[in-house]
């Protein structure tokens, strides 16, 4: 049981962070606004959770300009994907 709980990742306990990671697992990259409408959260809330995932190096951020408007894209890093898969496996084990 201890072994199992070790793989459950605190970073993904939060619903919004879980949502961000889920979306980035199946999409190469997503911008702020699509994440916002997908998860139905406020700007500030989303920004906080994105920052925290970025700090844990689970996602990477790429800033660019599209027609002179700033556009920020988020991608899951290899580390983030691995951690997320481990987290899901731990949940599945726990539910068995």
């Amino acid at each position, binding site marked *: 049981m201890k072994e199992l709980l070790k793989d459950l990742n605190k970073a993904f306990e939060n*619903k919004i962070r*879980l*949502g961000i990671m*889920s*979306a980035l*697992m*199946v*999409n190469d990259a*997503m911008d702020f606004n*699509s994440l916002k409408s*997908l*998860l139905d959260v406020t700007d500030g809330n989303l920004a906080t959770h994105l920052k925290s995932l970025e700090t844990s190096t689970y996602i990477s951020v790429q800033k660019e300009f599209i027609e002179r408007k700033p556009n920020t894209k988020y991608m899951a890093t290899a580390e983030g994907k691995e951690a997320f898969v481990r987290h*899901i496996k731990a*949940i*599945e084990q*726990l*539910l068995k």
Partner: protein
Amino acid sequence: MEKQKYLDDLHEIKSIMDRSSRFISLSGMSGIVAGCLGLIGAYVAYEMVYSGQNYLGYRQALLSNENISQLLIIAVALLLSAVGAGLFFTQRKASKNNQKLWDSQAKRLLINLFIPLAAGGILCVILLFKGLIGLLAPLTLLFYGLALVNASKYTLSEVRSLGLIQIILGLLACQFIGYGLLFWAIGFGVLHIVYGIAMYIKYGS
């Protein structure tokens, strides 16, 4: 208690993955309408190609140049109405689901649908002008099936099996080439209606 939370989490993960990567507003109604238009098209083509021939004897598909252009006009008109109806019903469903009709998922779906479809379409036009009309029905079925299988990763998973059946029908139609129009009517008409009804029941209007 704990378990329920994790079950909810898994459910949430799946739902977000689906919503963010698949276009799920496809309406069953558009399948039904497309199927009916397909049947009408098959009937009109049948009347034109086999007109004036003995029902019981050997029949040959006859196409004059005039017939070809008429047939093309009918095909394009039916295609446009089917796409138009599809867009209309899908738009209605998307706004009901609070989703946009045109988003990155829809774009991805259409691009992946159109790569095999365009290749097949161009090939069919070339064959048509070379007089190989017998191959048109099998090849449109085949390429349509390939397009559906290719696009199914980005929309409702049922589309994949619809595509596989179209491919099989296309190959059969190639073998039994005299029955091409019949297979075509089954694939584009009957199957669309059956799938449309099934989707309508499963996912709502």
